[in-house]
């Protein structure tokens, strides 16, 4: 568990490392944005406004060829004219081809990334840690079988397996009510701030994606937990506890698990980063249950690279910042706690 | 011609850490004579190992040799640098510290060879023992074949050559000749089946055998000075004796000088002709073994030796001195004698200024030097401070 010494190390490392501070700021910012999305977004991210489609971000303008027809001396004259489309203050980061606000979609995208990243990691950790602890603690056949199974699952890249499973199982999603909207907290605040009201009252949680990213990433946790269990079961105090008649469950719960907390925590942080990347890849490829996702927006922007670079660029910057933040926090934890784990587990 | 191979003057090495400046080695002076074993003894943390690393210029960051001279006797080298580095040459001696870095590096091997405390961690685990010894032979062979290139930055072995060697292992750095010499060296240090052992990896060796291999590696450069930093500390008692015998034997046969660094008084008594006692980064007493062991002047030396100043007794008891080695953090070091708060003979003047206190001991031998107020006067019990008084004065600083 978290001892005073651990806390001291964390503080010391945080003081001396500017990168750790940046990481914490980025992660906190992302959590706040995700949590308070209805207050922070400028528009309903799903509202389409075709009159305001493909608006550039502030400071940029877009040119488009407009053809006007005119009757000149009895014949139809077509003239091509270059028209400048300018940014508007109500869409500071521009709009996409459907006229949806790029900024507001990026804000709501943080929710999807955070939810999938955290819930997927929790699921992977629960699965992996249970399997790993049992395998490491009992060793023998169970261990062999579980570890061979882990080897086999490692042979499938997470992304490949995730695509296959989601493709076959479907893209189920759960509508989670947005508490801020449901309790009527959002509209008054937004009206007071002069922002358009009518934010979405529910939030689409891509259920299959969460289950699948958990299923394809459990192995990393299993390996760590098994290693810890293997070493801790040989400790004298564990042998003593066993000699005193403590049950296996009690030994695992009281001795093995607490000792494995640090490496699991560090791994979990790294995994959140990996799963955010994995989720964005899945939604980019269209294997997701929601359209409010950074990866999905990037795939939408792909077709407009020559005319509207911002549609694909801005959500990508959001992903990079989020993942850098989580990775920096992971580095901070690893440097401060030094659990000696390798293997970062990417997409 | 003088008979000192090495004259160390005013050597000062400090570490500049986040916690502050650490004065690991402070104004250390000593000489090493031809064919002798010079011992450096002290508790751990007294700066003996840093002294060894300073001699061979291998202090790593955040440490730095701040000042000092290391005069090494080499007539050829002196001649060579007389015009280019006049300050670095004095008669037959060169001040190693003032030579160009490439030359300093080149001196490792033929001038100074080093044996470290833990043989297991001092050898690369993934290269055969034979090859590692052969590397030490090879570097000298190449130096003789092409002295100029050897003193260039890459010592005639740049990245390009290394890449070629990696792709074509048969063209590796080490020549067959050196490989054969490595086997000879292994045999020389008493390793059975040297041919076969040369192809084994460090993890296949026992601790004692590994330390023998380290000795073989040190012999590869035919050094003038062998620096042995706690060579037996990591070994079993029976093995320790074997390694010490080996060192004695080799030292006589090869006519080397040895700087032996240890915390073990028994080893010092058995091996050394002269000895320096280190405490808190300073040499507090030095002289011939008889002078220091039979007529110790510094209370620390006396404390170390306990009640048995008998050189003939191979196992003097180490009667522990009360208290701990003082912090070497510059900020926490005052003007007082660093040993004062542990010293049973401390007096008022010990707590004010120690700079003037190094002096020849009041014995017959002028070579017996002591850094203590008692060097030139007799101890008078009435002047001693009680421990309470000591605490008070020190905490007033």
């Amino acid at each position, binding site marked *: 568990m978290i001892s005073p010494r651990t806390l001291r190390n964390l503080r010391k490392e945080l003081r001396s490392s500017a990168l750790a501070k940046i990481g914490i700021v980025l992660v906190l910012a992302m959590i706040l944005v995700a949590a308070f999305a209805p207050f922070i977004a400028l528009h309903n991210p799903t509202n389409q406004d075709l009159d305001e489609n493909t608006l550039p971000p502030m400071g940029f303008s877009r040119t488009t060829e407009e053809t006007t027809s005119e009757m000149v001396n009895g014949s139809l004259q077509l003239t091509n004219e270059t028209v400048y489309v300018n940014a508007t203050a109500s869409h500071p980061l521009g709009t996409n081809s459907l006229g949806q606000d790029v900024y507001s979609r990026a804000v709501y995208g943080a929710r999807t990334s955070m939810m999938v990243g955290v819930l997927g990691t929790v699921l992977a950790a629960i699965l992996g840690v249970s399997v790993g602890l049992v395998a490491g603690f009992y060793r023998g056949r169970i261990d062999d079988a579980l570890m*061979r199974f882990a080897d086999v699952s490692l042979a499938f*890249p997470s992304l490949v397996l995730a695509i296959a499973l989601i493709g*076959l199982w479907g893209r189920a999603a759960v509508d989670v009510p947005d508490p801020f909207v449901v309790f009527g907290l959002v509209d008054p605040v937004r009206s007071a701030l002069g922002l358009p009201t009518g934010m979405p009252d529910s939030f689409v949680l891509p259920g299959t994606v969460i289950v699948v990213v958990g299923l394809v990433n459990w192995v990393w946790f299993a390996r760590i937990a098994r290693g810890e269990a293997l070493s801790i079961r040989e400790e004298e105090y564990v042998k003593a506890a066993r000699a005193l008649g403590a049950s296996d469950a009690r030994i695992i719960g009281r001795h093995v698990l607490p000792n494995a907390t640090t490496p699991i925590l560090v791994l979990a942080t790294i995994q959140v980063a990996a799963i955010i990347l994995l989720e964005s890849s899945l939604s980019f490829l269209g294997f997701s249950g929601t359209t409010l996702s950074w990866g999905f927006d990037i795939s939408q922007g792909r077709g407009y690279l*020559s005319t509207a670079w911002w549609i694909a660029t801005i959500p990508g910057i959001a992903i*990079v910042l989020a993942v850098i933040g989580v990775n920096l926090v992971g580095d901070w934890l690893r440097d401060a706690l030094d659990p000696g784990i390798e293997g970062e587990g990417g997409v | 011609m003088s008979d000192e191979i090495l004259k160390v003057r005013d050597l000062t090495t400090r570490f500049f850490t986040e916690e502050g400046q650490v004065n690991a080695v402070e104004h250390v002076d000593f000489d090493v004579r031809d064919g002798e074993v010079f011992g450096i003894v002290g508790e751990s943390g007294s700066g003996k190992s840093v002294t060894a690393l300073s001699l061979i210029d291998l202090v790593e960051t955040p440490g730095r040799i701040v000042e000092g001279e290391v005069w090494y006797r080499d007539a050829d080298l002196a001649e060579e640098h007389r015009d280019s580095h006049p300050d670095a040459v004095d008669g037959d001696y060169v001040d190693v510290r003032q030579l160009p870095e490439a030359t300093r590096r080149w001196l490792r091997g033929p001038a100074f060879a080093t044996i*470290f405390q833990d043989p297991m961690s*001092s050898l690369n685990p993934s290269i055969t023992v034979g090859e590692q010894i052969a*590397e030490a032979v090879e570097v000298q062979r190449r130096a003789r074949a092409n002295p100029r290139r050897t003193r260039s930055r890459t010592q005639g072995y740049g990245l390009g050559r290394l890449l070629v060697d990696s792709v074509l292992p048969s063209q590796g750095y080490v020549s067959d000749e050196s490989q054969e010499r490595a086997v000879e060296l292994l045999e020389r240090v008493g390793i059975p089946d040297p041919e076969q052992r040369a192809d084994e990896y460090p993890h296949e060796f026992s601790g004692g055998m590994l330390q023998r291999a380290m000795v073989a590696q040190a012999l590869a450069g035919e050094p003038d000075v062998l620096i042995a930093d706690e060579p037996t500390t990591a070994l079993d008692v029976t093995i320790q004796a074997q390694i010490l015998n080996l060192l004695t034997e080799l030292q006589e046969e090869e006519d080397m000088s040895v700087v032996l660094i240890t915390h073990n008084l028994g080893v010092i008594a058995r091996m050394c002709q002269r000895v320096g006692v280190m405490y808190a980064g300073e040499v507090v007493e030095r002289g011939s073994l008889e002078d220091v062991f039979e007529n110790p002047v510094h209370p620390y030396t006396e404390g170390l030796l306990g009640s048995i100043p008998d050189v003939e007794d191979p196992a003097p008891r180490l009667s522990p001195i009360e208290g701990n080695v003082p912090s070497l953090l510059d900020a926490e070091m005052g003007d007082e004698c660093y040993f004062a708060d542990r010293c049973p003979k401390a007096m008022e003047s010990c707590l004010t200024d120690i700079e003037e206190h190094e002096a020849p001991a009041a014995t017959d031998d002028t070579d017996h030097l002591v850094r203590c107020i008692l060097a030139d006067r007799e101890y008078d019990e009435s002047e001693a401070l009680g421990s309470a008084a000591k605490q008070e004065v020190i905490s007033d600083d």
Partner: protein
Amino acid sequence: MSYGRFLLKRGLQGIVVVWGVVTIVFMLRFITPGNAVDAVAPLDASPELRERIAEELGLDQPLYVQYLDYLWELLNGDMGYSYISGIEASSMVFSKLPATVELAVASSIIAIGLSIPLGVISATRRHEPADYAATTFSLVGISTPNFWLGIMLILLLSVQFGIFPTSGRAFGFVQAFRITANQGLGAGADAFYQWLRFITLPAVTLGTYFTALITRLTRSGMLEELGQSYVRATRAKGLPESLVRYKHALRNTLIPVITVLGLQLGTLIGGAVITESVFSWPGLGTTLINAINARDWPILQATLVVIGTGFVIVNLVVDAIYAYLDPQVVAE
């Protein structure tokens, strides 16, 4: 244990893993909701037609018979025929394999070629500008989704400056080689130029994450090795710094780096799938996505089996290199 026996043992373990891979691929169909016949049969198929389809696919047999049939056919190199195009699955997958392998190899070469020098420079010039540049690059590199990086490269280098084509693949390396042999050096040089133009952006896209990852690993590993006492001892015996750093420290740094690379191989293949999708690179990734969207079972199974087996084989090679570099591995 000798090196040969070590390899043999690892080889046998590899075969067990491949068997596991094959079995999981077989099981996929049974953990998938919906009747397998539905996937093939037309929506308005009569019960008779559905029965015939089931019979033809062997779906009316008991599970173990289906499994054994499947294994037996796999051993004979028969992975069925595409439900959509009727093309033999094995020939389809193997015709797509070279494009993916080419992409993976090209990006690995970029990654290894850049990252190890970067990591070494970073470690040996710690706290200098070069180190800050390398650590910043590697942090951003491991945090950037490669599909977005690919799109940004297209945006900048293809759309804005027109240096590289936006997508596709002119022909394979082997084909370019053949053109050289058949049509002379002039045509060959042009063929290789085209090959290079098309593969550059995908290879850079796929390679960036690995370049960043290996740079990080090399830097931290090298820093650790340079702090070991054997490095000091090696310097003390007078070896030139280039030997100390590269022959001694770097070699030992690469040993754990290689292990992690073996574990990260899946990331490379997963990355290839998405990179192929960004650049319309006609490899296994595109095949896999198309097969899933079309529920083309034989193609899907064949692709997964080839990917899984490929992973196992490359891991064997990695293990062999690892054991060659670190003699202690074989001893244990």
